Structures are given as C-alpha cells and as structure tokens.
C-alpha cells in the first residue's frame, strides 16, 4: 500500500495535492505514455518542479511501483505492482466520486 498524506495540516482555502495524489498523477502520466515515460514528460504531465519530481520518482521506485529502464536516457515504466495499484486506485476513485467525495 502506498501511504497517503497523513498528519498534514490542510488550510481551509488551499487545494494542495496529497502525496498519494501526486504519486498517482505521476503513475498516470507514465501509463499514458505507453508505460515508457521520460522524466521531462512526467515533469510536465504531473505538473512538478524538477527537485520534487526526482524526490517522488525515487520514492515510487522504493515502493516498487515504477522502475527505471534505459541506459543513456532515463525512462520510467510501471511495474506489475504499480499497474495493479493504479487499477485499484481507479476503482476507489470511481466509487468515491460516485458519492461526490474527492481523494
């Protein structure tokens, strides 16, 4: 399981993305790019700064949901665990959205 953003104070008017939401956005971009995404595509697709992108990619690799492939240029792809997680997340998102809840 990927941990969500816990213990973070949320300001009433701010609409910050949770850590989980950023993970999922990064993974969605990789999946959209036919499961072979370069860092620049992920950076623009997930709307992240370079530093934060590196941080999140490392965390996702540690969690075993993405893997780095390619020799000269870095390319990221989803692992089987990542694909399964994304499918489960999509179901949960669809369920929550049916009730009007955002995750």
């Amino acid at each position: 399981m990927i941990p969500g953003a816990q213990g973070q104070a949320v300001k009433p008017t701010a609409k910050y993305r949770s850590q989980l939401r950023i993970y999922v956005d990064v993974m969605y971009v990789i999946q959209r790019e036919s499961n072979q995404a370069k860092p620049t595509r992920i950076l623009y697709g997930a709307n992240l700064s370079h530093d934060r992108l590196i941080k999140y990619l490392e965390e996702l690799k540690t969690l075993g949901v993405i893997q780095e492939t390619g020799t000269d240029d870095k390319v990221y792809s989803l692992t089987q665990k990542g694909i399964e997680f994304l499918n489960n997340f999509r179901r949960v998102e669809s369920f929550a959205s049916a009730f009007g809840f955002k995750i």
Partner: protein
Amino acid sequence: MEFIAFVIAMAVAYQALKGYKLSKEKTLLYLNLSFVLIGAGLLIDGLSSLIVLLARLRGGSLYLFGVGYSINFLAQLVAYGLLVYAYVHQARNVTTSTAVLAAVPILFFERNAVTELILIFLLVYIATQTAINYSINKNTNSMLVFGAFASLSVAHVFFLIFTVAPIFFPFAQIAQLFGFLLLLAMLLRVNQPA
C-alpha cells in the same frame, strides 16, 4: 427485503473500507461506518420482524417490533448523520479528529412521524448533495447514487404516510429495496474490469 438491503449495505461498506485503506481519506471511513450502521440496523429490524412473525406472539410482539425499529432508527440516525457530516467536512476541507455524536436516550418506540421526519430531513440533504455531484460529474455512477438516496428519501416519506395509512408499507419497502439495488448497480459498475 431488509436482508437483501443488509447485504448490499455491507458490500458498500466493504468497498468504502477498501478505499479508506488505500487512500486514508476520512470521508471514506465515514461512508464505511455509515453503511455498517445502516446494514446492522436493517438486519436487527428484519430479524425482530421475522421473530415476531414466526412466533406469532401477541403480547410481546409489539415490544419486539419496537425494539427492532428503535435500533434501526438510531442506527440510521447516526449513519445518515455521519454522511451529512462527511459532506459538510468535505465542503469545508478541514480535518477533525473526532465526529461528535448526539447522546440519544435509550427508549424503545414504534415507527412514528417524528422519527421518520428526522430521517427524511437527513436523507433529503444527502440526496441534494448527490444531485449536485451528479450535475457536476454527469456520470452514471453519480446518477445511481443520487437515485439511491432519492429512493431512500421516498421510502421514508412512504413510511411517514404509513403511520396514518398502513397501505403504504409495501410501497415504502419497495422504494427502500430499489434504492439499495441502485447502490448495488453502482458497485458492480465500479468493480467491472477496465
């Protein structure tokens, strides 16, 4: 009918729990607790009615009906209250550590206009929220959830009318079952393979 509704309520609760475990989103935990309570209330109400019908008691039957209905009412009151809280919580986008539940005196009572009006009030609020969600999302799952809560609202309107005109009881049961079947349809759609 209560038993079918119980199974569907538990299935919704299970899905919400899975979602909570994955996302740690509190609103899904409230949704889970709500449907566990709704399911438990329906089960107790259904069982007490069944026991009374099977035993064909006369003296004790009214009391058992009262016990079943009282527990079901309290369960629904807390469950729909939690759902209302979840919608308010989401709207304000603030985190709160505990949900404050009203202390309700333990009294057994028959189905009556006041209890039904309270449930109708809560259900209409939830149905309105789901209608707003449907108007924004415009997808079938949102429509099914809106339809479910609208049906449950109508069911309790029939239960309210039933207190003066017993002929409305079957209509209330059918509307309630229809509401839960709509939730089942939504669950099946959500879990169908991509």
